[in-house]
């Protein structure tokens, strides 16, 4: 039988995890409870974070917006601050699962589960997010681009919890875009998911950031594509180039949800279309 610990504040949660780093932190459980029932029985002990108030909520500061790890996608998708500052994140939040899933699934859970298909993850990558991890030793700030270190492996230590995500407020004039390609609009695990942020100054791309999911073992920021595209004039030609460079930059796989060929094809089209939105 699984032992469940239910701390009521962050200090207690961190100290329980510090004593037993084998505890499995849980919140919305929309990934955890889907794992093989046999595995579930074998979980020796879990740490329920849903009663830890400090981990939940959205706080807007002067330079950054901070989202607590156990904030649900329903909360993110209906936040006026998120909609205003990070429309790509708001859009992603509204297409993760269906309503029931969004009411439970959390941003921190999406990050910790570290699926290459996690829909919010490419968005965090293009927003230059910083992940704040907490342990009994204090806080540690991890640039989100350094967080996913391999297939389902992250930079989080066993004694650490994800506390919050800090999103720097974008320069005015930045345009964000998000597109998920799945079997249907709701309740689909992505075949390809793309996030982009761009800013045009005098007809040229002063800023261009691109990230994708379901095309590599981890969600990826396509830095080499960005470097080739930044500084170019906005338009059809640049958008097409961005698409073909993105396609060449990834090595997707065949699996139950899609094929490598389709993923590469869809990535190219989606990147081209999103980049055209900058005109």
């Amino acid at each position: 039988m699984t032992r469940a610990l239910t701390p009521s504040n962050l200090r207690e949660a961190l100290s329980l995890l510090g004593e037993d780093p084998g505890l499995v932190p849980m919140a919305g459980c929309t990934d955890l409870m889907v794992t093989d029932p046999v595995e579930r029985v074998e979980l020796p002990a879990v740490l329920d974070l849903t009663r830890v108030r400090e981990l939940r909520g959205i706080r807007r500061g002067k330079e950054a917006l901070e989202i607590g790890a156990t904030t649900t996608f329903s909360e993110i998708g209906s936040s006026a601050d998120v909609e205003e500052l990070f429309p790509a994140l708001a859009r992603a939040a509204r297409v993760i699962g269906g309503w029931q899933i969004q009411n439970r699934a959390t941003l921190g859970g999406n990050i910790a589960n570290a699926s290459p298909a996690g829909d919010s993850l490419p968005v965090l990558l293009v927003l230059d997010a910083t992940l704040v991890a907490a342990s009994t030793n204090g806080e540690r700030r991890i640039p989100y681009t350094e967080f996913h270190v391999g297939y389902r492996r992250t930079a989080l230590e066993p004694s650490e919890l994800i506390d919050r995500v800090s999103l720097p407020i974008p320069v005015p004039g930045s345009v964000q875009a998000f597109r998920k390609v799945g079997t249907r609009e709701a309740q689909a695990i992505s075949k390809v998911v793309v996030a982009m942020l761009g800013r045009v100054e005098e007809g040229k791309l002063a800023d261009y950031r691109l990230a994708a999911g379901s095309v590599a073992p981890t969600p990826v920021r396509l830095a080499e594509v960005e470097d080739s595209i930044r500084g170019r004039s906005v338009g059809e030609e640049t958008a097409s180039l961005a698409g073909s460079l993105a396609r060449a930059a990834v090595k997707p796989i065949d699996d139950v949800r899609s094929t490598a060929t389709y993923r590469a094809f869809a990535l190219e089209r989606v990147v081209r279309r999103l980049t055209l939105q900058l005109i």
Partner: protein
Amino acid sequence: MARLLDVLRERLELTGTKEGCGEGECGACTVLLEGRPVLSCLVPLVQCAEREIQTVEGLADSVPSFFEQFVATGGVQCGACTPGIVVTAAALLVESPKPTRDEVQKALAGNLCRCTGYEGIIRALIEEAGR
């Protein structure tokens, strides 16, 4: 970990809540947790202490006209998805008392129905809201 779904059905004998896929895809096991629709197959019981759970049985008293509408429009065929849809719909009508067709479709996107083609269900909801 014990699932809320199993405790409802097997220990409390509240069998109105159905198990469909058991992995969060179909919406048949939808219940309200603190007023919000969630999938009871994905809720570990340990998270339910001192939290309010409402099942379709609890809605039978408060919104009987609902059930009549579903029958009248042909929104019920085999019935496996119906309890989950009724629960989700009840939550939608609290949030948006006069929902648009688009809102209804978005709210029900996580409730699969393989019989009705959804049309009767959507009409039932829009008509229920029109009363």
